[in-house]
């Protein structure tokens, strides 16, 4: 196999844990100069500038490249010798041509993520029309008109090449000026690097699914819980998890134990640096190109104004922090008013590590790096259980009711999502008995109130966000599915586990409103419900309990408008990516549906979006977590 045979063997270098997680200072690619690891270590220049290619014709070469992120030389998959791959700068309404040459010893491909194009140019081997991958030493020419603008990215759709470095940014300059101004812009691409062979990572997850989880609850947590809540309450709080044989700390399948998190290809030890002049408006184009990692991003000292999501304009919203799912992009504007440095802090959502960068007026300045937030516990909501029927749940810890749907609580100030009266501390799990949640009849709350309350617009045209009874297909029952959400809720204004009530204004999907009205969009012709399913212990993933290899393609009619509802029957976030067509996300006001290419379906949650089926051909539709994707995948045929 490619990965096995090409990996440079470990050279007996012993690594401290710190170096491994933080990365090697001055690590990274050595730009095709053929430098060995020792000369690389001696390199004094940090490779900070990400190459950018402009124009309408591009030559891209996929090849193997020696890298060293952790002190151990490894082989990465790069494009034009760069990790991340060069940023491609296109112009809206140009026609672009990319001649892609594969110098690997195995098949490769490039998928243009979020780009609306003909199926044959989409780059998914075996699905895109007439495309079976780019064989070794062959060149494939992609050519298509660019009919959109904004921040996107590209990556391999072959094997696990995304994990080994095959990803880069796409920035498309708009024909009409953007609805905001800025003095400079930076691509900030987040990713996760492992020294391990991705095939080994996958095999380890199959053999021991918690292999990489070193944030389990231990004796000390148990003692603390008993001290705070008593034995009985502690037992009851943990009862459901124990009975379901699930871990409340099942936050990420692959963690900082093996990952070094990168920002524009820079390890945390180095950090990426972006320069600015005081008073400038800086547009930061965040792209999550990680294989498996969700990042929670903030810049202490700076408010961020989110102006685009997945390349599409949204009504500006000012936040302190946002969670970016795998494959999502967010464009934010920051305006530093002082001559000091600021840290871009991107902690992994399971708190096992971080990527970082610095915005600074002077390369010699740096800013403090925040500590990782405490490791959160999953709540009952994350299991698809909004409220509880069991008698054993008295004295419930309110961490299990973090009000994912805070806005449904009458009299709660949900607008800022701060919920000040509930904001006791960062540690969600320690807030036992502060509120008697049992007094609140959550089951009877009218979920329809949420969007209108939230939006505060009289013209609001909300969708049906009621939590209707959920039906699980017969194919969802069996050894391959370990959980079915019995009460999945729309949790659009839930920032997600680990971000709830953290005292910061955190972006949620409920904040996303299209800049332009979508009131002229047609109503859906039909609805499809898709269940995201799996067995964590066996590490099997599927949709409706059927993996891709066993599934018939989804047949969609050209010209129809669909409403797709996802039910997440797992405890993991799944960033669902539909190729070729936009996902118009129902976030509360259907007059302003934001357009996305990747929609995060939170654990145990429900979410809906609308798709105008306007792209004939075959398309991929899948979870973008690289080790879930093989099973949690559907081919869509539009005809």
């Amino acid at each position, binding site marked *: 196999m490619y990965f096995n045979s090409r990996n440079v063997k470990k050279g007996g270098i012993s690594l401290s844990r710190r170096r491994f997680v933080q990365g090697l200072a001055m690590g990274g690619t050595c730009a095709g100069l053929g430098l060995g690891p020792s000369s690389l270590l001696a390199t004094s220049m940090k490779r900070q500038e990400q190459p950018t290619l402009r124009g309408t014709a591009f030559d891209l070469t996929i090849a193997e490249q020696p890298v060293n992120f952790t002190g151990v030389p490894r082989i990465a998959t790069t494009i034009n010798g760069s990790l991340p791959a060069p940023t491609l700068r296109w112009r809206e309404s140009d026609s672009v041509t990319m001649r892609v040459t594969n110098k690997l010893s195995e098949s490769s491909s490039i998928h243009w993520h979020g780009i609306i194009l003909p199926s044959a140019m989409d780059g998914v081997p075996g699905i895109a029309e007439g495309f079976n991958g780019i064989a070794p030493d062959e060149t494939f020419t992609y050519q298509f008109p660019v009919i959109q603008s904004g921040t996107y990215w590209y990556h391999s759709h072959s094997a696990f090449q995304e994990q080994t470095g095959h990803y880069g940014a796409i920035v498309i300059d708009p024909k009409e000026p953007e609805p905001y101004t800025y003095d400079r812009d930076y691509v900030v691409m987040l990713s996760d690097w492992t020294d391990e062979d991705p095939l080994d990572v*996958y095999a*380890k997850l*199959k*053999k021991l699914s918690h292999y990489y989880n070193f944030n389990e609850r231990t004796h000390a947590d148990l003692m603390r819980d008993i001290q705070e809540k008593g034995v009985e309450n502690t037992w009851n709080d943990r009862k459901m998890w*124990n009975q379901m044989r699930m871990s409340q700390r099942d936050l990420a399948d692959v963690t900082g134990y093996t990952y070094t998190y990168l920002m524009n290809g820079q390890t945390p030890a180095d950090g990426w640096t972006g320069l600015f002049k005081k008073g400038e408006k800086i547009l930061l184009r965040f792209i999550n190109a990680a294989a498996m990692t969700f990042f929670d991003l903030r810049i202490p000292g700076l408010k961020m104004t989110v102006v685009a999501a997945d390349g599409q304009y949204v009504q500006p919203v000012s936040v302190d922090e946002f969670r970016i799912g795998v494959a999502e992009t967010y464009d934010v504007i920051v305006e530093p008013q002082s001559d000091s440095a600021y840290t871009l802090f991107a902690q992994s959502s399971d708190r096992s590590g971080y990527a970082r960068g610095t915005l600074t007026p002077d390369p010699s300045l740096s800013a403090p790096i925040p500590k990782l937030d405490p490791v959160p516990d999953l709540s009952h909501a994350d299991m698809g259980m909004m409220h509880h029927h069991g008698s054993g749940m008295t004295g419930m810890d309110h961490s299990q009711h973090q009000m994912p749907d805070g806005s449904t609580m009458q009299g709660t100030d949900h607008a800022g999502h701060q919920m000040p009266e509930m904001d006791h501390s960062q540690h969600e799990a320690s807030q036992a008995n502060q509120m008697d949640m049992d007094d609140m009849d959550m089951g009877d709350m009218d979920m329809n109130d949420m969007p209108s309350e939230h939006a505060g617009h009289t013209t609001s045209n909300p969708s049906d966000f009621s939590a209707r009874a959920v039906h699980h297909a017969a194919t969802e029952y069996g*050894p391959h599915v370990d959980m079915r959400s019995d009460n999945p809720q729309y949790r659009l204004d839930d920032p997600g586990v680990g971000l709830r009530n953290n005292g910061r204004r955190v972006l949620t999907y409920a904040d996303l409103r299209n800049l332009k009205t979508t009131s002229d969009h047609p109503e859906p012709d039909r609805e499809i419900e898709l269940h995201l399913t799996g067995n964590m*212990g*066996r590490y099997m993933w599927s949709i409706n309990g059927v993996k891709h290899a066993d599934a018939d393609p989804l047949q969609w009619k050209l010209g129809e408008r669909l409403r797709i509802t996802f039910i997440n029957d797992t405890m993991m976030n799944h960033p669902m990516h539909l190729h070729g067509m936009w996902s118009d996300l129902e976030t509360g006001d259907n007059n302003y549906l934001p357009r996305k290419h990747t929609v995060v379906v939170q654990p145990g949650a429900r979410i809906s979006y609308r798709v105008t089926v306007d792209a004939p051909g075959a398309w991929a539709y899948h979870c973008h977590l690289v080790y879930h994707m093989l099973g949690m995948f559907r081919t869509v045929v539009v005809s």
Partner: protein
Amino acid sequence: MKKLIIALMMGAVSNLALAGGVEDDPVLTKLIVDKLEYRNGEDSDHMLLIDADAWIGRDLHKLWLKTEVERVEAATEEAEVQLLYSRAISPFWDAQIGWRHDARPRPNRDWLALGVKGTAPYLIEMDAALFYGESGQLAARLDAEYEYMITQRLVLIPEIEMNFHSKNDEATGTGSGLSNIALGIRLGYEIKREFAPYLGINWAKKFGDTADFAEEEGESSDDVQFVAGVRFWF
């Protein structure tokens, strides 16, 4: 047996290579040496115990090999091997059916094995099996263990094993009814996930005729042993 393991593993490697691309459900192999330990007790001086399993297969279908060998002073006192087809029957349980062979003590005994292996609520790892032997002998075995995490790497594992038999089998020192119970507690440190040295205590007690047979042989029926060993897998 060793050859068999190697043959199985070779099979897996070639299958993977033939697959070419990445499969969602590749053929994998796992060798698990659950206990490779030295035991020292009143009645069990310098005992070496190996409890090792191996499997090859896919998500829902596997071939399992289970072995347990006890050696005292260079003599093999007990040796058992099971070859089982394992099929997932529910999210947390596999049914396992196959053949068990006891090579020691003499004379050999062969059994049809039928069991379930998996995770019970409260994350208790269980292996429960019924064995049907040659002369109508029926045996049952229950093995349960729990991993209590003291820290992320320091793990305390209590374990219980019980064996029942329907008939006396004096030749092998087996009595009917509840034959024996072993209670163990082991404290391991996972240097890597795949490698954990441990220390522990094992209490082995024989009951009924099994105890009598042991005492006739001059062995004790009740033994507390200190154990030291390693657990590893790959």
